[in-house]
């Protein structure tokens, strides 16, 4: 069983909601990333989404755009991410790691090589923002053959037909983008999210995780009541940006912010 499935099975048995932090690998520079990952786990992360920096992150708002720029300035590339995950695995063999990013770095490396390196490094799932299921004919099966879950997005604009197809093709969990917009945008309406998740529950048994618009303990707890998992990105990446000049302060801050969310969700 893949670590992601295992983790969600455990959470379900405990009647708890997954907390899924996102950070951009290599931000503010590559030597800090593994330390941040451990700090996030200490603060209660159930799954880690590790962002692959890209020069043209079209679906991201300014916070994650700048994180990509910081990471790229230090030359962070895919092979560094594989090294980071390998190092993370020396101390943590349980927490699932999902690589999240855009297709071009993956295409440039080659699908086969990517799947092989990711799997060997200890990655569990892959979410490629600009690769919807209809373009994943070749990539999806390759990931599967290496034991990697293909994680797909669902959006408020997704039609019922598409949702059914995505639910059928998705693995690990489904990432429900709660807002129309880029990452880091406005706040969200939990009741609306709840209404939108209801028909999806009839289509799939996969955990439904919700991201976009979660910034503190209160919003995390509110979303946690209607979803199986809560994804938080820009709120953490913002803290990394604030601490970029004094990176030693970042890990404790991340722990504090994520810890607040964990406590609010478990209360």
């Amino acid at each position, binding site marked *: 069983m893949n670590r992601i499935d295992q983790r969600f099975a455990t959470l379900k048995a405990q009647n708890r909601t997954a907390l899924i932090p996102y950070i951009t690998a290599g931000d503010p520079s590559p030597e800090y990333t593994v330390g941040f990952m451990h700090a996030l786990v200490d603060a209660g992360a159930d799954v880690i989404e590790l962002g692959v920096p890209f020069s043209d992150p079209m679906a991201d708002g300014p916070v994650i755009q700048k994180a990509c720029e910081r990471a790229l300035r230090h030359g962070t590339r895919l092979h560094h991410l594989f090294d980071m995950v390998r190092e993370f695995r020396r101390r943590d063999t349980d927490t699932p790691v999902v690589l999240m990013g855009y297709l071009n770095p993956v295409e*440039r490396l080659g699908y086969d090589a990517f799947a092989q390196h990711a799997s060997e490094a200890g990655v569990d799932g892959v979410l490629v923002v600009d690769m919807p299921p209809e373009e994943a004919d070749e990539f999806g099966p390759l990931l599967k053959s290496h034991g990697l879950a293909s994680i797909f997005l669902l959006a408020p604009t997704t039609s019922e037909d598409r949702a059914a197809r995505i639910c059928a093709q998705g693995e690990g969990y489904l990432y429900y983008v709660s807002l129309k917009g880029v990452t880091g945008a406005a706040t969200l309406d939990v009741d609306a999210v709840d209404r939108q998740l209801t028909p999806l529950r009839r289509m799939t048994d996969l955990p439904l995780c919700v991201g976009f618009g979660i910034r503190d303990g209160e919003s995390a707890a509110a979303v946690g009541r209607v979803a199986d998992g809560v994804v938080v990105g820009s709120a953490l990446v913002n803290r990394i940006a604030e601490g970029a000049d004094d990176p030693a302060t970042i890990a404790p801050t991340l722990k504090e912010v994520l810890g607040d969310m964990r406590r609010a969700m478990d209360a």
Partner: protein
Amino acid sequence: MTDSPATDTSVIDYGDLTRLPDARGHFGPYGGRFVSETLSFALEDLEKTYLALRDDPDFRAEFDRDLAQYVGRPSPLYHAERWSAKLGGAQIWLKREDLNHTGAHKVNNTIGQALLAKKSGKPRVIAETGAGQHGVATATVAARLGLKCEVYMGAEDVQRQKVNVYRMRLLGADVVPVESGTRTLKDAMNEALRDWVTNVDDTFYIIGTVAGPHPYPLLVRDFNSVVGREARAQSLEQFGRLPDALVACVGGGSNALGLFYPFVEDREVRMYGVEAGGDGLDTGRHAAPLASNAPRGVLHGNRTYLMSDEGGQIADTHSVSAGLDYPGVGPEHALWKDVGRVEYVAANDTEVLEAFRELTRLEGIMPALESAHALAHAKVLAPTMRPDQHIVVNLSGRGDKDIQTVAGIDGIQI
């Protein structure tokens, strides 16, 4: 080179090239719809709307009427006799897209997409622009239809193209300078996509070139192919046969596809796409993904030849012309390169400026710097051909917007 996608396009027979893309928007291994989920629905919707209207006689009649009465089509096919004589080879004919309302071929497409926007009932349009020609053409149709209009433009291009920026503002559009990335066309497109994903319910995105996710490469090509249909008929009428060669500049590639597409199955007509050679292909400072054999990649919703580094990060591009300063290229061009239907070459900045000055002085026609790339290659090609042969060059836009740039190169402040 990447080990995927594994398709070797050189050994596949794609049959009649006019029948592409396939139902999923693929031109062989290129094209497609690589977008985040939020936009998938809007693109499916646009595809449905367009396919239903594509052969609708009323829609076609409305489009043709706008092109005739608002744009001023057909544009002439002009025999550049003095320039041809000077080059001492083939006869050069200029397809005068510079005479269109707003001064470039771009308006053919914005008229078409504005009609789609009107059918969709969306009150707001957005666009990305490089040189500003597409932005001006979008602001123009938005003014005419009473639509709210916002144009994203790289901050560097806002500096390079001040006249067009002010033109757009006079037309009532908001011009948003984009400060991210390299502050050029690709960044403007990123920002337009971010706007669209946020405002998809009430906003129609008018993409200016034959790139982007399906169905944009298809519909932008279709709306621009009026250029090639006219050129084909005018060739038969004015010199009694099809041209021996076609030449057009290629950034994203919309004017080239517009000219080439109606000729693509006329296998005896040679076609040349001219990319921006910048400081020269060997310097790495250029915007010529096809001519430089860049690897395949995915950006802005489609797979194509794409300038990127080993790690897949998009490369910086360079060109004297803002409108060609783009790291990718329309996916249909990518396939046409692979199957050998079109030869893609590059003209560098120096050659382009020389062609710009030569046409201005010999024919009294000042070309856009983008179009001057096509002229620069015609200068190379014509002397290798006989005087009874004919070359049609797409003069895709006029050069008024570039006067400041050229003056700057001459060391003159105006």
